[in-house]
């Protein structure tokens, strides 16, 4: 159908947005500034340009970055004058910047509508799209004998499901960014990077072979780097254990790269054994491959997912990535990029299935350990976004457990289902957090992310609070919200398989998740003395008067709250992905007892959190923990995230850089020594040999007659002793 062929254009559309913004609107902006530094502004303001008249030398600078960055140096920027952070601000947006936003949103809206249309049409008539998918675009890049490298994109049900997630969340985040980033310098640049990210994610989603998925993999890594490090001038805050955005971006990229090493090796093993990169061909060819080799290859491929989806031990970049703007955290580090690892494993599920069951065991256990590990850390974090970051890591662990224990009937269903529901409520959580941070920033003129300085915000920001509560209940697995269905499916699968270790870990993590999410909610929005028993409002521990965020911020929150509740009711999800698998049977799920055990555990977690945070004074809680030695040390270990960051820092500084220093010494002294030494030897030899020419005749005569004497001796010896 022509409708499906159109998806090739939709794939390229965000790239077009990126190009338009970078090459169109930004130069337009630069060109429309006249020589004295006054930008043409439509608001008709009387002031001389956006930089308070200081702009002559700075505005004529060709680099818009630097010009915009100077904005914070001035002192007439309205209410931002007293800001103590170094995010550069602009008092109003130029026309080009606003157009950038509109272009990006328009294209993303187009993509979103298209993806929903595709979804609905394939739901109505599942026969229109063959199960193995259709190829949307194909370009033969290089053919070398039997090896052919083809850039190819396909469309099948899995791709459509993921595409819906990606485009919907992207659209809502871009819409949200209009309000969140309205006073930030580099507004146009932000939207261009968001579009680039959307393009990269779609490359992964549509990929038909490992080459293309790897290209998309690296592109999302690049976009993540650009977006995390968006505020390039921001400094680190060591007292809050926060790195600078530039360092955080670098950390994200490098840690991803470490995972990619395994990924590439895995792909190469598969290629050399089977001769192809295409997923469809691999499925048939790996049946004849040596099983151990295949298992090793798939575990290595999973390493890439470990890096991209922030599983233990490569999880350290995700908390640092919170240094980027909150819309970025919502889009990339909650809903889509980190889910790329899950998507990739789901896409290559038949390859995992053909390998030894140990591959699935590895996937499931890594996921379970990560889930518990991250949940324990999140129990004691005080930074609002950091709690959410560890929550993301934990839920990603759940997705991998789901992929690992699914079995041949359900295949990639449960894992992808949890990805699907998680995308919505986690994006909601992050965008709500962004709303809170935005209003606190306006209220205190400082960047406040510490939950100890919040409290009782529900009465002041009701829409944010209610949507956040909905998302909290969803993530905790409260019955009949969307998270309940996806999580309990996974926990139930571990129970059915008899995997008691996995069962215990996932069940425990569900309780911990409920605990820390409600803790975060109460610390931010509630508190002792508030209404509804401390859940709604209370004492505000910070400064200033926070108020509700503007509509561009709250509308996406409301829109995301809807699928956070009802996304779980799409029971045909499993069948949609794999025609042979059974659909989610809610009735059966409610009838089995282990579902209710999970519910009880979650409720216990919620209850404990309620008691500790809504009923007890925070100072009293703090003193109880500090006075008890066991609790205090536990608290310190968890607060410092098991000291893994410090461990990696030591490792890099002493082992990695130590090896680098050794190799640098090798290069400088041995290699350069050889090369320079050869040159030096030649010049020295030449210089010393040239001393033979003394310029004095008598020296030459000595040489002459000395030679004669030597020859004479030789002849004498030869004649006397060799003759006869």
């Amino acid at each position, binding site marked *: 159908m022509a409708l499906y062929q159109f998806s090739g254009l939709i794939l390229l559309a965000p790239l077009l947005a990126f190009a338009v913004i970078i090459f169109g609107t930004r130069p337009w902006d630069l060109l429309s500034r006249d020589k004295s530094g006054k930008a043409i502004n439509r608001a008709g303001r009387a002031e001389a340009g956006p930089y308070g008249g200081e702009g002559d030398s700075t505005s004529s600078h060709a680099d818009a970055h630097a010009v915009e960055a100077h904005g914070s140096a001035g002192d007439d920027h309205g209410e931002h004058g007293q800001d103590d952070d170094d995010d550069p601000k602009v008092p109003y947006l130029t026309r080009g910047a606003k157009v950038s936003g509109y272009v990006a949103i328009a294209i993303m809206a187009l993509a979103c509508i298209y993806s929903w249309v595709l979804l609905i049409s394939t739901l109505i008539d599942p026969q229109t799209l063959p199960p193995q998918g259709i190829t949307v675009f194909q370009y033969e890049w290089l053919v070398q004998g039997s090896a052919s490298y083809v850039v190819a994109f396909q469309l099948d049900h899995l791709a459509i499901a993921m595409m819906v997630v990606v485009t919907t969340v992207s659209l809502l985040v871009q819409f949200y960014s209009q309000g969140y980033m309205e006073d930030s310098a580099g507004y146009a640049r932000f939207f261009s990077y968001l579009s680039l990210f959307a393009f990269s994610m779609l490359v992964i989603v549509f990929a038909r072979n490992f080459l293309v998925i790897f290209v998309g993999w690296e592109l999302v890594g690049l976009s993540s780097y650009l977006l995390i490090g968006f505020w390039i001038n921001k400094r680190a805050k060591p007292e809050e254990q926060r790195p600078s955005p530039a360092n955080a971006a670098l950390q994200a990229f490098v840690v991803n790269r470490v995972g990619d090493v395994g990924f590439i090796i895995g792909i190469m093993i598969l290629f050399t054994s089977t001769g192809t990169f295409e997923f469809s061909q691999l499925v048939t060819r790996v049946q004849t491959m040596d099983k151990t080799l295949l298992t090793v290859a798939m575990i290595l491929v999973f390493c890439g997912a470990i890096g991209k989806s922030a599983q233990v031990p490569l999880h350290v970049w995700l908390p640092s990535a919170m240094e980027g703007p909150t819309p970025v955290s919502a889009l990339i580090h909650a809903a889509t990029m980190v889910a790329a690892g899950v998507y990739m494993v789901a896409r290559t599920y038949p390859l995992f299935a053909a390998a030894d069951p140990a591959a699935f065991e590895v996937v499931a256990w890594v996921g379970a350990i990560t889930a518990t590990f991250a949940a324990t850390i999140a129990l004691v974090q005080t930074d609002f976004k950091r709690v959410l970051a560890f929550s993301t890591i934990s839920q990603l662990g759940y997705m991998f457990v789901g992929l690992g224990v699914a079995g041949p009937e359900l295949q990639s269903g449960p894992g992808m289902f949890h990805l699907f529901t998680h995308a919505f409520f986690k994006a909601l959580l992050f965008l709500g957090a962004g709303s809170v941070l935005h209003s606190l920033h306006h209220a205190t003129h400082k960047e406040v992310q510490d939950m100890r300085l919040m409290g009782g915000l529900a009465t002041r920001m009701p829409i944010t609070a209610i949507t956040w509560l909905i998302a909290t209940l969803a993530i905790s697995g409260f019955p009949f919200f969307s998270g309940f269905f996806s999580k309990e499916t996974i926990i139930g699968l571990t129970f059915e398989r008899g995997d008691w270790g996995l069962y215990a870990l996932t069940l425990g993590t569900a309780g911990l998740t409920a605990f820390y999410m409600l803790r975060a909610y109460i610390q931010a929005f509630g508190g002792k003395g508030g209404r509804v028993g401390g859940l709604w409002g209370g004492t505000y521990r910070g400064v200033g008067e926070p108020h509700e965020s503007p509509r561009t911020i709250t509308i996406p929150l409301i829109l995301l709250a809807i699928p956070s509740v009802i996304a779980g009711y799409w029971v045909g999800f499993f069948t949609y992905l794999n025609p042979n698998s059974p659909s989610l049977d809610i009735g059966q799920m409610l009838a089995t007892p282990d579902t209710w055990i999970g519910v009880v555990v979650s409720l216990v977690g919620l209850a404990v959190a309620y008691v500790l945070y809504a009923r007890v004074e925070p100072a009293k809680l703090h003193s109880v923990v500090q006075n008890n030695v066991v609790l205090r040390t536990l608290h310190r270990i968890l607060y410092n995230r098991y000291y893994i960051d410090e461990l990696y820092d030591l490792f890099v500084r002493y082992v990695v850089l130590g090896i680098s220093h050794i190799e640098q010494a090798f290069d400088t002294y041995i290699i350069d020594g050889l090369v320079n030494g050869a040159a030096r030897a030649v010049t020295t030899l030449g210089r010393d040999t040239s001393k033979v020419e003394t310029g004095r005749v*008598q020296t030459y005569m000595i040489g002459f*007659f000395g030679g004669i004497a030597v020859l004479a001796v030789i002849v004498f010896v030869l004649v006397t002793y060799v003759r006869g």
Partner: protein
Amino acid sequence: MLTLNHFLVLGAILFCIGLYGAISKRNAIAVLMGIEIMLNAVNITMVGFSFFDQVRPYSTHLTGQIFAIFIITVAAAEAAVALAMIIAIYRKRDTVDVGEIDMMKW
């Protein structure tokens, strides 16, 4: 009895003494004197060969002596030119030490 070897050995000894003087003397004129001794040694050898030549009759082929005459001629010419040069160098550099004439060095 005198044989040719006497004169050849005498010539060899003189040649070596002259060579020693030419190589190891610092005064340019002493070098020239060493060269004159070498030329004399060669002359003695030449004349000795002409005297002991039994192949051709004495009266017609005094080749060695003719050679010696020309050597003497050329040696005189060369001595004149060499001494002129030494005087010219002395005027320019105020030295006749051959060790200091080394502009063609490295």
